[in-house]
């Protein structure tokens, strides 16, 4: 055993203190870059009646990302959740944001599902995923909405991420395709395009699974999706900023002193 200990040096002991500080500094810088890549929430003002973004990264950098892009008549809002968290998730999220930008800039008139189809191609190409079992299994789950302000139609397409709509106090959930943006075990299929006729006052919520998957300090159980929906539903009459606060409070309350298990992202917007 002693021999073994001598053969396997303690890696942490080898990292100089200064080196660790440099590492954290790099991550802080990376965080800045990641935040800079994500849209400034200010751009959504004026485009939407009200909105909030609850973004609670587990680490300095995040595997979750939000995205917004708009022209005069169309707006795209998305909430993405990359596999893993921390640095690997953050790198993938940067790819996701870049790809979304590329796609939206090339054709804003694309249907929501076609955006996801294209995004998946880009991710598969970038990660060299060809359907081989040895491929990298990284991927992005995402919920994406395209809002046409002229026709009041909202297109939604989801890769493992649903959309919640609240209209006149009633919650409707739009189920996502059980696929991710990345290679599928057997075969990739086209994402489904959901077209919703919206009404003024309708509220929509896109989110990652970090909130529902958070373990509670006291209960040691996950918050669960049905409770998440209950909070959303119960707060629907509140202004978006207060909804955000309520969600954040509920999350923190549930988490207590337990470690945050994943990045948390919730986007709420009202038309």
């Amino acid at each position, binding site marked *: 055993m002693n021999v073994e200990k001598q053969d396997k040096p303690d890696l942490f002991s080898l990292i100089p203190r200064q080196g660790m500080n440099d590492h954290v500094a790099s991550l802080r810088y990376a965080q800045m870059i990641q935040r800079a890549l994500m849209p400034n929430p200010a751009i959504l003002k004026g485009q939407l009646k009200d909105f909030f973004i609850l973004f609670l990264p587990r680490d300095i950098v995040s595997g979750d990302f939000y995205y917004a892009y708009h022209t005069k008549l169309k707006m795209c809002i998305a909430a993405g959740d990359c596999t893993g968290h921390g640095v690997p998730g953050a790198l993938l999220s940067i790819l996701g944001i870049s790809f979304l930008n590329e796609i939206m800039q090339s054709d804003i008139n694309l249907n929501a599902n076609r955006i996801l189809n*294209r995004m998946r191609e880009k991710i598969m190409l970038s990660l060299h995923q*060809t*359907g081989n079992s040895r491929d990298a299994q990284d991927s992005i789950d995402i919920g994406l909405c395209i809002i046409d302000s002229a026709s009041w139609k909202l297109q939604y397409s989801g890769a493992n991420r649903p959309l919640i709509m609240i209209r006149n106090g009633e919650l409707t959930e739009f189920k996502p395709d059980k696929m991710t943006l990345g*290679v599928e075990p057997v*075969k990739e299929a086209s994402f489904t395009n959901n077209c919703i006729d919206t009404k003024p006052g309708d509220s929509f919520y896109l989110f990652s699974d970090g909130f529902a998957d958070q373990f509670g300090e006291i209960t040691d159980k996950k918050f669960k999706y049905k409770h998440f929906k209950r909070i959303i539903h119960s707060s629907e009459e509140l202004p978006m900023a207060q909804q955000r606060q309520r969600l954040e409070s509920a999350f923190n309350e549930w988490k207590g002193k337990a470690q945050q298990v994943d990045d948390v992202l919730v986007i709420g917007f009202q038309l």
Partner: protein
Amino acid sequence: MMKLKAFRIKNFRSIVDTDWQNISPDNITCLIGQNESGKTSVLEGLKVFYSGIISEDVLRSDLSLPEISCRFTIPKGWLIKITDNPGTELKELLSGLTHLELTRSWIADLSSVIKVSGEISQYLDSLEDAWRIYLNDVTVKLEEEMISIQDLETTFSKLIEEESDIRSKLSPGKEKKFSFRLFWKKPADMENQKNSHFPGLKNQLNQLKKQKEEINDILLKKQPVKSAGEKWKKLQEKCTQIDDHMKELSLKLEERHQRMTLLMRPIEEDVDSEWKEVLYDYRKTKSEREIRIAQLDNHIAFSGYIIDGCTEEEAENKVNEVIQSYKSQFNNAYLGKKYFEYCPVFELFEDFGSLLPNRIDMEDIVSGNEKVEGYKAARNFLTLAQLDYSFFQQPSSRILKQKIENLNNTLTHNFHDFWQQSIGRNNKIHIQFELDHYNASYEGKAGKPYLEFWIKDEGERLYPKQRSRGVRWFLSFYMELMASANVIDKQMVLLVDEPGVSLHARAQEDVLKVFENIKDKIQIIYTTHSPHLVEINKLHRVLAVQRDNLDSMRSTSRILDPLQLASASPDTLTPLQNILGNPMGSEGFSSKRFNLIVNDTGSFYMLNAIILLMGFKGKVCVIPSTNVSSIPLLCNIMMGWGMDFAVLLFENDDEIHMAELLKNSVFKTDSNSREIIIKMPGAFLNSEDILSTLDFKNHLLESREGITVPNSVYIREKELPRNFILSRFLSNVKEEKIKVSDFDEETLENFKLITDLLRGLK
């Protein structure tokens, strides 16, 4: 001087009547068509037009005999120069002619005669017709005269009878009898009767005598007519006998032909010798018939003058005069034979057995020993090298070898102008000949010179026989052609049956180059199945041959000229459709459907797959171009054939440019050009972009790699076999391995765009 312009073949193998078919004015004519369509029959027909030699197996089952006509262009006034003393009318006709028609027709013994046909023949026939009408008139007159003479002779005989009757009454013996018979009558009555009878009888007798004399005078005068008439009858009888005999012989010959053509096996030898006798008899009888008919005609004319009262001598002279006035000194056969001397040589290159030999003795070349192997090819070689025997008499062997070396280089250089293929890497073949002498080991030949031939490349020095069939064929073909072009002093029509079947596509194109090079000296008519031997921008050269009933080999062949190609069957047009890009046997240009031209074969597959998937039933026929640059040519063809069509263009640089080009040049005069040029709705660079990336991967590539560029760009960048991929896709659709439900909504939306577009075509 004479250049083949058109031909017409009747009753030859599967051909009943091709009608007049113009050959290409630029001297290269290409016959396309399926196997057994009758292409080779056309070439053979033209060959036998020149040679006149046919066998029973060319006869059709109804045994109608072949007749082959060729129309030649000639310089105006040229016929006058080669026709001796044509006479005023004929001279006027000949001086204005710019073309000449010759027809070779065969008779039952399979011998043939070549005649002028067309305008000259019409003129000569009109003279002949007038002559026949004249003879008919004379014949009618002669018949009337003969009847009248016969009537007179009958009357004369009757008069003689009556005369003799009266004379008997008046003679004593008769009186006695008369008295005896009337013995019972009273004597007074008898006396009275006698007195009253005699004067009456005498008067009658006198009258009869007078009548007799009159008739006799007439008959005497008509004696020459009678003699002529009797001779006419005899001649006619003889002619009838000959005709009957000819009919019998013809029947026998027909029976033989029937046996040959129906049984398709050789006739036994003893039967054959019997047939030879029949044949000899037939020919003899035929020539006798011609003589007899000429005699009869002359005699009829002669009789006419006798009827008119001429003496025999006068009549003879007048017959000669009338023949001159009614009949030209020329007839169709005479002029046909005369003009045929100037006819281009028709040569059928069907057998290239006389390939360049490995070695040939100079002695055989000098003595013209055609039986020695490769003689013809060796002669061609020397002709091409412009060598004669004196060349080899150069006393200095060093100079001779140098000259040969130079010649080898020149020949090889010339050959390379046509033979573009390289062997293996970059080295091309070299033709080489050497002069050498037999050594002492060759008994009887020692010291004698011979020529040795080689076909070399950098790696190998091989005898001609060691080379591939393709190389040997092309070399032999090249030499025959070039030598013919150098030697012949009159026009030549070269008939080539499926040239270069054993050649690579590239070498087939070289064959076309040879044709192009010699076409000023030699007119070429060739058959082919190969798209490489049809030039897309020279479709005026194409004649399509096909059966009337495509399913029956017993049906007759017909020829479609370039303007009728649209109505040819898709199979017939296969070589054309291959070069134009249409790869499907069952599809093709259609005059009954709307033709939609697309950029290439790949798009053709894709659109047809969409049509199948969407169950589109409209009458639209997708026509692929070989590439974008060939679209104007296809448009011209469609316009020429008067077909409904439009061009579907995608959003790539070439096709955007093509849209402009079509508007500005091809459809310049067409106010509907906007409807003819259809831009593909949606920004598709090419047809494969109609599929979503996902469907493209799933159904075309069968791969899962991420694709972030348009499908067409992906295919180009990865250098994938586009036509193969799209062809496989169509095939899978046809086999229902891929169904419309397998596609995503993006693709289906695009499919709908296509079907809406097709539906809107008018």
